[in-house]
């Protein structure tokens, strides 16, 4: 009978316990913080430090994993007491039963190992991966493990993780010899190179294999797989199979968009149209299914995927694939595209979507009308901008309606649109906007009215703003602009009105505020008549400094 295993010395156990505590704590730190966080970095450092004394007592650390404990040499060195988030259970639950760590593991592999443990922790119960499949992908050199694998009939067997074998590419030895020969290496043995069998790959074939392998991982396998589906759709006459294919393509669409497969999406849509046209006797139901597939791209949930990818992925200017997909949108997509255009801050995305909007509107202007007539939304502003950009004069009445919008931004967009369109109806409406409660709206309306010369109503409205009673809070620059505008539209009529402000007559005359009188000076400058000049001249020595300054400024630029 062999002697029972002796328990290790208590001092050694303490060293290993310290390491396991550090690893358990480290796992949590790695889970909660990012690599650039000092807490994360400190945890990694501490784990590394805890390994050093362990290598002083053993050349290889072999740990047995149980549900709530991790054992070394039969002694528990970490007990997590049934804690579901404890390191022991996280390893045990997916089948890990033994972990072997080798010196050097602390420099990088242990952190990678624990990060994988954390990734596995976050997996859903029905995920296609677990701790073991994730560990396999890591190809650890200094970590090996044993795990249970179910064979069936209730049988489980313990399997060791494979030691990573260095895979030597074909021709590596030949390359080495060729290099040695060309460098005149005297260590080469003198041997006859006799390849006695035709079944060994020659250099050209080895190069061919390497090239093929590179190409395998370079080519667009997704597109090739999609083409397989499209071939099936085209060549298999069974309607049930065709419906299945269309269903699969519909399901794949969001995933393609989410991963930026825009070119593939555009390819699918083009090929679907080709199939629809090329395949004789396609049944009506399938024909409709293919058409409705095209419509699918334009549905809000699919478009949101597309927009998310555009915003996250960074759109490159002139990205042909993105443009190709956007060109496939149906008019029904317009409201969704407009809404996103109203929200996005990315200039490249704005340009792409703007082009798309223009295309969609040209195809079906009624969709734009529907947006304009609809309830307030993020789509409204860009819709108004589109009206202007595309010079859709027939939509002026609808734009005018939005001058009454409770949203300042919408009224601004409406004014901009009307200013661009500049029809007589638009200009008349803009005159009404001169009294808008929002300053930006008033200013833009004023500029637009002046640029177009205004209509008969403009003078009266401006006059009311200057001389009338209202609740609008006109700040200095706006007031001046109004005075100048009044002079522009009223012409010679403005002179006596300005004079009455500058030189009030009558028993109960009261001077206008200095700022107003200064504005009157600027208005006179717009008239550019001899009389106006003579009047301004009288105020170069006005007791009010702001009036004096205005007069002198104006006269400086006014040749006699």
């Amino acid at each position, binding site marked *: 009978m062999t002697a029972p295993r002796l328990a290790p010395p208590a001092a050694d156990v303490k060293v290993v316990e310290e390491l396991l505590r550090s690893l358990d704590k480290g796992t949590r730190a790695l889970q909660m913080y990012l690599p650039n966080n000092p807490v994360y970095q400190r945890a990694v450092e501490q784990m590394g430090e805890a390994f050093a004394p362990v290598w002083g007592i053993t050349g290889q650390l072999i740990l047995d994993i149980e549900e709530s404990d991790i054992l070394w040499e039969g002694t528990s060195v970490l007990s997590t007491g049934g804690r579901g988030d404890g390191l022991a259970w996280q390893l045990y639950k997916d089948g890990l039963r033994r972990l072997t760590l080798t010196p050097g593991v602390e420099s990088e592999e242990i952190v990678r190992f624990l990060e994988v443990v954390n990734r596995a922790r976050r997996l859903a119960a029905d995920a296609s991966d677990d701790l073991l*499949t994730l560990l396999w992908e890591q190809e650890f050199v200094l970590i090996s493990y044993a795990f249970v694998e179910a064979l069936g009939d209730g049988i489980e067997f313990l399997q060791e993780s*494979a030691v990573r074998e260095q895979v030597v590419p074909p021709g590596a030895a030949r390359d080495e010899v060729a290099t040695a020969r060309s460098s005149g290496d005297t260590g080469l043995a003198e041997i006859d190179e006799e390849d006695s069998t035709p079944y060994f790959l020659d250099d050209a074939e080895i190069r061919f294999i390497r090239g093929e392998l590179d190409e395998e991982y370079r080519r667009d396998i997704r597109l090739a797989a999609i083409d397989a589906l499209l071939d099936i759709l085209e060549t298999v006459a069974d309607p049930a199979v065709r419906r299945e294919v269309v269903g699969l393509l519909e399901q794949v669409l969001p995933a393609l968009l989410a991963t930026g497969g825009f070119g593939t999406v555009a390819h699918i849509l083009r090929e679907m149209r080709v199939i629809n046209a090329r395949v004789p006797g396609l049944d009506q139901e399938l024909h409709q299914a293919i058409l409705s597939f095209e419509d699918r791209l334009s549905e809000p949930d699919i478009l949101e995927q597309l927009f998310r990818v555009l915003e996250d992925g960074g759109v490159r200017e002139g990205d042909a694939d993105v443009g190709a997909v956007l060109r496939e949108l149906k008019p029904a997509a317009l409201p969704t595209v407009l809404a996103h255009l109203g929200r996005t801050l990315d200039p490249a995305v704005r340009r792409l979507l703007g082009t798309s909007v223009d295309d969609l509107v040209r195809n079906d202007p009624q969709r734009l009308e529907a947006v304009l007539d609809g309830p307030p939304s993020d789509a409204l502003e860009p819709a108004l901008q589109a009206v202007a950009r595309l010079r859709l004069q027939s939509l002026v009445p609808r734009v005018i309606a939005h001058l009454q919008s409770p949203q300042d931004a919408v009224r601004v967009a409406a004014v901009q649109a009307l200013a661009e369109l500049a029809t007589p109806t638009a200009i008349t409406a803009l005159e009404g906007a001169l009294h808008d409660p929002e300053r930006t709206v008033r200013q833009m309306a004023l500029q637009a009215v002046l640029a177009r010369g205004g209509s008969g109503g403009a003078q009266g409205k401006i006059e009311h703003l200057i001389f009338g009673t209202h609740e609008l809070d006109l700040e200095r620059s706006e007031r001046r602009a109004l005075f100048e505008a009044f002079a522009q539209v009223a012409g010679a009529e403005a002179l006596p009105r300005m004079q009455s402000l500058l030189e009030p007559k009558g028993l109960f005359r009261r001077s206008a505020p200095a700022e107003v009188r200064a504005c009157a000076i600027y208005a006179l400058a717009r008239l550019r008549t001899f009389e106006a000049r003579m009047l301004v001249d009288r105020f170069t020595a006005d007791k009010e400094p702001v009036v004096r300054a205005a007069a002198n400024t104006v006269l400086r630029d006014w040749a006699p």
Partner: protein
Amino acid sequence: MSGDVDEALVRQAGRALLLSIHGSARALKLYPVENAAVQRALDDLVANTVAILALEGGVEIRLSGEFIFINQTRLRLGLDNFAAFSGFVTMLRDCGVGVLRVEDGVTRREWQAFLSLIHELPADLLPEDRFERLQARLAQAELVHLDVDVGGEHDARDEEGDEALERAKRTYAHGVATARDVVNGVRMGRAPNTRRLKRAVQLLVDQVLENELSITGLTTLRDYDEYTFTHSVNVCIFAVALGRRLGLQRRQLYDLGLAALLHDIGKARIELEILNKTSALEDTEWKRMQAHPWLGTLTLFQMREGEDLAYRSILAAHEHHMKVDLTGYPRPVRPRRLGFYSRLVAVADGYDAATTRRSYQDDPWEPAQVLREMWLNPHRGYDPVLVKALINLLGMYPVGTAVILDTFEVAIVAGPGTDNTQLHRPLVRIALDATGARLPAPGELVDLCQTTPAGEYGRTIVKVTSPDRYGLVVSDFFV
């Protein structure tokens, strides 16, 4: 009764006995003895014991390397009972037991006591210590009709080799069980367990990397009834082994292995009457069979989970019968270049399919013939460089080929020879001596590269032959 019939009966009775020992042990482990499941298991065990004792009088179950003998008869393992056999072997080996003797008159009580004693042995003792304790307890319990022994001498090297082969078998059986699970799941419209699939491929890749020879030997286990599943695993093994030879890295081997394992998944949507038909297929049936690649495409697209879509597997399923010049099936409409992995899978698939007896192929080609045909006949549509690489991997006489030597012995090729520049001189196991007498499996292992002191080769292959001609079951030499 003739010797062959006797042997078959003993094999059948022996298998039933082992399965019922394992079943009873398991039941006793899970439930109290009075539980109905335990009682039923013990009833079966008693019945099977009586049956085999009626044939043989007394029974000696002996573990010898990776083989199990019932008296002088070696049991052939099948995939349907491998798990239970593996469990039985593990149970005995863990107690250091190499021999279990069962004598006429053994009672139900004795079986129950024996299995309970095994179950109660402390887990932390070494096997030899557990054996000592078991023997002592058997004596105490006065179990006179059951006896154990340690078995024959086994050197450490053999044990290591046995353990390696055992691992290979487990991995192979696990792969087949997974393939069965996936295919049956597709037939029943059930989503497959993708995680289990991944694990199976990872294990197969690791097994090829660790001990390629042991697992390629298992591809000779050409199971007639489980063809679909064993074929998928075999193609996976050959493809991964070939990929490894071509320098693919581990992750690439996984991609390739997954594609290979799933390449025929479309057959799960082909009617069983067509798949299992023993006579030639009608035109419509053949056309239906030719649909399995694109049916595989549809199946794999359905199988994806979110974005975890193994496109390479889809392409291998779709393209593996297309031929390099695209004149195969299905015919592509859109421009297509046959993928590298698809070509690899096609080569592995072609080789395994042609060398397996199937419902309609009673006389499969010999492995060497298949390789020659793949190499010499471009109309078969295989990538010639990959065929060359396959020959390089398997040798001119692949594992499992039956050959006649210049000594007129008949042998089974067991692996590549020690000189890998001499592909025509593999390792062989002598199955029949020069007089034609059958030698006990697995037979003497001979390296045809070995020369005599005079510098001449001791033995040389003169002809490939059919194992059936000599009544040889190739897998007996590997499983």
